[in-house]
């Protein structure tokens, strides 16, 4: 470190550090990742706005009432909520350095995520089979964009989850892996928050229309 000396008045030296002090590795990751999540939140806000504008333009095609199966959405919501809880338990196990328990909770989280994706894809396939494709109406375009983007996030979350489980298996609960696991936990809980908006505004409000 270099310490420079300046003089304010004659005979009165002022000391200050020229270099930025050292930051521990990863100390700014949490804030950086949080800001990424906030920017992701803006993407979803815009997709919600698009759905809000176009969601009632059916082009004489199917409306939410003809397409959505609320009991299926309820099951899906339950899966995602449970996966948030199990990820929370994984984080608690990590805190207590119980590696096996943590890996087990991560597996459960991944299975819930996979079940969520499976049900969502079945729903999409069913809709497309009935002719309710994204090209059919503005409502369906915006629906598939919004819900599909969320599903894509869950998919990438799952890939990330598997990657981290391999990382932890190979290198153990080192500092870097803890940091990554915390980032994924924020990502996973954030997706759950977005899903609250999806099931409320898309599915429930759609059925009320």
């Amino acid at each position, binding site marked *: 470190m270099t310490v420079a000396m300046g003089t304010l008045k004659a005979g009165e030296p002022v000391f200050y550090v020229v270099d930025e002090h050292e930051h521990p590795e990863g100390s700014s990751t949490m804030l950086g990742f949080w800001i990424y999540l906030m920017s992701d*939140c803006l993407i979803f806000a815009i997709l919600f706005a698009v759905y809000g*504008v176009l969601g009632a333009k059916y082009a004489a095609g199917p409306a939410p009432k003809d397409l959505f199966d609320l009991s299926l959405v309820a099951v899906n919501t339950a899966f995602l909520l449970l996966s948030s809880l199990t990820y929370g*338990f994984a984080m*608690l196990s990590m805190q207590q350095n119980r590696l096996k328990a943590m890996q087990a909770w991560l597996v459960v989280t991944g299975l819930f995520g996979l079940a969520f994706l499976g049900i969502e894809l079945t729903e999409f396939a069913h809709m497309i089979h009935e002719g309710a494709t994204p090209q059919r109406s503005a409502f369906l375009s915006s629906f598939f964009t919004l819900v599909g983007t969320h599903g894509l996030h869950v998919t990438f979350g799952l890939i990330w989850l598997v990657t981290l489980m391999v990382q932890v298996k190979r290198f153990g609960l080192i*500092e870097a892996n803890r*940091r990554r696991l915390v980032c994924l936990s924020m990502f996973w809980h954030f997706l759950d*928050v977005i899903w609250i908006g999806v099931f*409320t505004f898309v599915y429930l409000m759609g059925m009320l229309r």
Partner: protein
Amino acid sequence: MSSDVHAHAHAHDSADAHAGTRSGQLIGFGASVVLTAIPFLLVMTGSLDKQATALIIMAFAAVQVVVHMVFFLHMNTKAEGGWTMMALIFTIIMVVIALSGSLWVMHHLTTNMMPVHEMGQTP
């Protein structure tokens, strides 16, 4: 080295702060289940009129978002020197402007600029 000790302690603190407690997780989960189940039941049974149902489920969604933020994402005003909260507040402002602005402008466009023969069909 004192800076290494500091580094380890700091990283550990921030990682642990995000784990929360088991009771916190369970309280958050319980609250979410109730806040999710009631809107679904209201819509599936249709026991209330549509406008009341819509208002209730939107209010429940807002409360549930806060519950998730506090119990799962462990938001507080002190984390990262308050900067996460600042980023969140900024994002909320942006989201409110983008959402309300888009809906407001586009609603006026549909009501004022639709061809006359379609006026009756506008939602």
